[in-house]
């Protein structure tokens, strides 16, 4: 009889968005397309990115924040948020 394998997995989503003070020409282009497609009351669109990361054990929080600040985002032009924390034991 084999012992069931328990794998600890932690999934984080890092949400990176351009700062509101930074011109986002991509967002402007998408907004114009949304307007063209019939949603005339669209105000602003901003395009960011989601980076999904899975860990096999809980990551060091300080290190994680350093990596989010220095690698995954650029604090000159972007803000980040760590969201969607889920833990599963498949």
């Amino acid at each position, binding site marked *: 009889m084999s012992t069931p394998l328990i794998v600890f997995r932690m999934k984080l989503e890092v949400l990176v968005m351009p700062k509101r003070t930074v*011109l986002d*020409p*991509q967002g402007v282009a998408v907004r114009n397309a949304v307007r063209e497609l019939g949603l005339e009351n669209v105000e602003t669109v901003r395009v960011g990115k989601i980076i999904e990361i899975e860990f096999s054990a809980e990551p060091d929080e300080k290190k994680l924040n350093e990596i989010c600040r220095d690698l995954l985002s*650029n604090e*000159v*032009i972007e803000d980040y948020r760590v969201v969607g924390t889920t833990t599963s034991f498949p």
Partner: protein
Amino acid sequence: MKIAVVRFPGSNCDQDCLRALQDGLEVDAEYLWHKETSAAGYDAIVLPGGFSYGDYLRCGAIAAFSPVMRAIIEAANHGTPVFGVCNGFQVLCETGLLGGALIRNRSLLFLCQPVVLKIENNSTPFTRLLNEKSLLRMPIAHGEGAFYADGSTLAELEDNGQVVFRYVDEHGEATSEANPNGSMNNIAGICNPAGNVVGMMPHPDRSWDRRLGSEDGLQLFKSLVETLLSVAA
């Protein structure tokens, strides 16, 4: 005298930079692979254009954490001249050696066209042979070349004379029409406070020989070589 041209996976102007140095100026120059952990033995370092590491995440973001950059940051902090062209400029901003960031061109277009630049600071190792306010012609080729900095960083750059190159018209005026990509204050290139680290979006490596349409870019590499010779003397 030996000058390094860094090669990241995805660099594509490495040969242009090496040729400008070797053929344009007959200087000893060689490639430096991104995995190297030392930049010892080089009198100056050139970070070429291209799409380092595919420009994934942001332009230059992953290259900024490559082993060779750790060594280059240390060399730069000890005064070694470091020159970032196009993607090289983006890498230097990502490392924090230079302030600000390069974001998507305002037009969203990848721009490949000649521009006119005005020399705003001729005391860097790369501009010392040029007269202040003199004009240079060379091409740009980028999708993310709009210089951005927050208000205080921008004021600091301007007040300290760290703006080295500005996009101007034929009369030397920094008009909005002469600004190809939406860069703040028409900034095309900057230096660090010490002046030994310079980054620029336009390509001197594509304008070092008359056959390329302009040889104005050679002046920048020649300035570097003169600087190194005068240090050695």
